[in-house]
């Protein structure tokens, strides 16, 4: 046992704790500054939910002052989280001695461990997306605004048959003449001429003839897309809107060059051997077992201003499997929890014609609540214990 404790020594040291705190602080600072250039999700994935990260030195100096190339490798959130976890466990294993005096410290540290676990569970288990619904219509799917997909829909039959190509596959094939995306499920093969992770559309009069000539069919002959810089954490709530130029082929024969964009709401027609398919680039969809019907969306403003006072959506929730069919209101700070999902009022459609709900599924959502309660309880116990002991000292 003593030997075991001896081995734990270095892992359990307070020095390691202090170093880990310092490293975490540096990482968090870098992860904050990085949001000036990158979107918050990119930063979260790179800095906080990976093992290590290359931190560009330029983050710490304004470009106007000094151009600083290069980057340093640095342990990222997962590594530091695991190390803190191990350090804390080892410290308590090596020095564990139960006493009332120490119970507060032990409790609050147990809570801190739980907090780390919670963030880990959230990191791997949580999923979130947006559900946009126009007034009077319904939706049963959420869109992941961080990722697009190319959907090819066969709407001729009784039920829609949908095949999607992931953003990952599109990006991998982008710009490579000899890389053609094929799959037995796909009625056509897809060649990606240009992928734009964020883009804007140019109208018929803004786009040059060359730009319009990039597409041979569909809307792309009237509007063009051009790449713009990615949305950063600084830009607030807006998101990237990818576009893609693709060539659809069948048996080596070109069927048409198309412009597909998440900025275009409707699918475009693609004719393959006399059959009509609908193709579009949309945000990745996940279907839910329930349907939300938007009855009414309200956007109240303060008198004489554009400042929003409240947003609320009157909706009908239908979930046949759970025999649920009822009307309710989702508003700011008043989400709906249903079937493991939580639906929040997030945004609205232009002209208040519809609502945007944020749909979050986080199996670990309760963990932070518990851990916070435990830490707070621990700190309270510790301080009461301290108070009693110092009171005793005064009395004696």
């Amino acid at each position, binding site marked *: 046992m003593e030997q075991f404790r001896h081995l734990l020594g270095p892992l359990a*040291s*307070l*020095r390691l*704790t*202090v170093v880990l*705190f*310092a490293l*975490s*602080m540096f990482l*968090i*600072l870098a*992860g*904050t*500054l990085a*949001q*000036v250039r990158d979107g*918050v999700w990119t*930063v*979260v994935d790179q*800095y*906080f939910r990976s093992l290590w990260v290359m931190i560009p030195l330029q983050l710490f100096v304004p470009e106007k002052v000094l151009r600083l190339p290069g980057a340093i490798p640095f342990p990222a959130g997962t590594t530091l989280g695991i190390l803190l976890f191990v350090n804390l466990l080892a410290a308590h294993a090596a020095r564990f001695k139960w006493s009332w005096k120490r119970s507060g410290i032990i409790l609050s540290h147990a809570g801190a461990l739980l907090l780390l676990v*919670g*963030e880990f569970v*959230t990191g791997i288990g949580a999923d*979130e997306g947006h559900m946009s619904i126009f007034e009077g219509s319904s939706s049963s799917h959420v869109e992941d605004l961080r990722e697009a997909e190319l959907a090819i829909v066969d709407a001729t039959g009784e039920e829609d048959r949908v095949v999607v190509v992931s953003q990952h596959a599109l990006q991998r094939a982008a710009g490579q003449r000899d890389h053609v995306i094929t799959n037995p499920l796909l009625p056509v093969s897809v060649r990606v001429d240009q992928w734009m992770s964020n883009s804007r559309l140019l109208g018929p009069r803004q786009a040059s003839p060359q730009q319009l000539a990039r597409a041979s069919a569909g809307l792309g002959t009237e509007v063009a897309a051009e790449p713009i810089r990615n949305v950063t*954490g*600084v830009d*607030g*709530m807006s998101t990237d809107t990818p576009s893609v130029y693709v060539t659809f082929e069948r048996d080596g024969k070109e069927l048409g060059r198309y412009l597909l964009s998440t900025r275009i709401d409707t699918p475009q027609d693609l004719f393959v051997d006399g059959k009509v398919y609908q193709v579009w680039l949309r945000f990745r969809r996940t279907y839910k077992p329930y349907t939300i019907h938007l009855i009414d969306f309200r956007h109240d*403003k*303060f*008198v*004489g*201003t554009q*400042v*929003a*006072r*409240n*947003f609320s959506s009157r909706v009908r929730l239908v979930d046949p499997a759970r025999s649920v069919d009822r009307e309710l209101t989702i508003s*700011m*700070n008043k*989400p709906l929890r249903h079937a493991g999902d*939580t639906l*929040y009022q*997030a945004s609205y459609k232009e002209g208040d014609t519809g609502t945007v709900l*944020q749909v*979050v599924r*986080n199996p670990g*959502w309760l963990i*932070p*609540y518990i851990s*916070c309660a435990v*830490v*707070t309880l621990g*700190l309270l116990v510790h301080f009461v214990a301290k108070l009693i002991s110092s009171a005793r000292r005064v009395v004696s």
Partner: protein
Amino acid sequence: MNIHSRLGGWLLPAIVTLITLAATFAIMFRPSRGEHRGEWDAIGRIPVSAEGRVKPLDTVARNSLIQISGRQRWERDGQRVEAIEWLCELMASPRTASTRNVFRIDHPDLLALLKLEDEKRVRFSFNEIAPSLNDIALQSRQAATVEPKRRDPFQKAVLQLESRLLLFASLARMETPYCVVPMRQGEEWRPLADAVREPELAQHPSAQSVIGVLSAIAEGEVSKAGANAREYLQTLSTVPEARTSAAAHEVLFNRAMPFIYASALYVLSFLLGCAAFLMRPLWNPDRSRVVARCALSIMLVAFLLHTFGLITRMYLQGRPPVTNLYSSAIFIGWAAIILALVAEWFHRLGVGTMVASLLGFGTLIIAHNLSSGGDTMQMMQAVLDTNFWLATHVVVITIGYSATFLAGLLGAIYLIFGALTPLLRGEPLKAIPKMIYGVIAFATITSFVGTVLGGIWADQSWGRFWGWDPKENGAALIVLWNLLILHARWGGMIQPRGVAVLAVGGNIITAWSWFGTNMLGVGLHSYGFMDSAVFWLVVFCLVQLAIMSVGAIPYRAWRSNTVARAAKRESAAVANVPA
């Protein structure tokens, strides 16, 4: 000890308290001077709705004048005149108001654009600017196409002037504030400007009364205008929407300016406190104790004003104390003072009073500089519109900021006076580190609990306990920094000197979390951006780094320490001499 000194121990401080209290209240609630003061007061109490809030006309006048002119009063023929007179003139007779020098313009290129560069003043009238309106429109249209962060000072100045002109115009046309009170079911606040399109609106009793007041002013009959205003207020007293009694309180609050007087008193108390604390080793103990108590009593009067202002704002807004950056400054100072007084209660060194007054003054100055943007009691964005979370998360985390700043300031005092002067010898040299430790422990708990409550709020509002948003990250940095100090101390890695150095570093971290993250302009939490603040933040951080570097002086070389040791040796030598 004679009776004189025994009484003097508390008598003088008590007298100082009473005199300060009486003098301050006499100044704050003095009857206003000048012609027709009573009339103007009544007119100022007329309730209107602007920026989504029902408030007295007096508040609109002050905020508009601050935005246009950079100050709350203006001068007419060399005489100081209240904002309300300016606003009423602007609404009643815009032609005359257009000749008043109220537009503040500093930028030399902008003055050149307006062909006013030869004038030796900074405030100009609308009529002087009017010939160049087209140029301003052209320039500001160009400036508006540039991203806000990339605009140069001239572009910022021209856009600011344009927004001032727009405000001036909308006040003159009575598009803002909304003057017509909803008196019946189904009515809403309406601007008088709408009466041009809807003649029946002009027949509304509320519109009639306001028009009556304004036309009396236009005719130069202020007494009649005042009488009309009083009559109008009387009618409105039964209309709940008008909130006439709150409006009257707000006028009183505007006039009293408690924060201004509090900050002046904080300075006075700080100077006295410094004298008492630093002269301790040199003066006789009675004298320094009396001076310390005087400093404390002035500080308490200032704190009373501070508290009065804080509570009045809460009452007027119907909200917990912190709703925006301005109020966070006021509250951080307020909470830090309480903590400093608690620390003082334990150790009785006089250092608490000194620190408390400095924090009070510093935060009120910051608040004052944040107030130039207009109404400091503006409405909250929908997602922030919840009193429960404002009262818990925001208050607790702000107390965490206060405690971290307090620890940092104590650390700075310990390092500067300990290392560089002989003034900290004896008890303070041992007691201040204990205070710092206690305050850091408190800061750890409050910043942790506050951060966590924020996470819970975020989970309730948009389903993400932690989003790695810059403001959240800033809060996490404070928690981690405090934890780092505590663990390093428990592990024996740092001694009192190291704790003090790191505590001063906490100032940088807290300033970053409070202001720096807003300057990035990132995330949902950013609610204000001030250009000059970037400069001051950098200065503040450099000063902190300089103070931290003082901590590099080894403890045995500290002036206070060497002097104390020498004194000890001397007294030991004296004791060893046989009698």
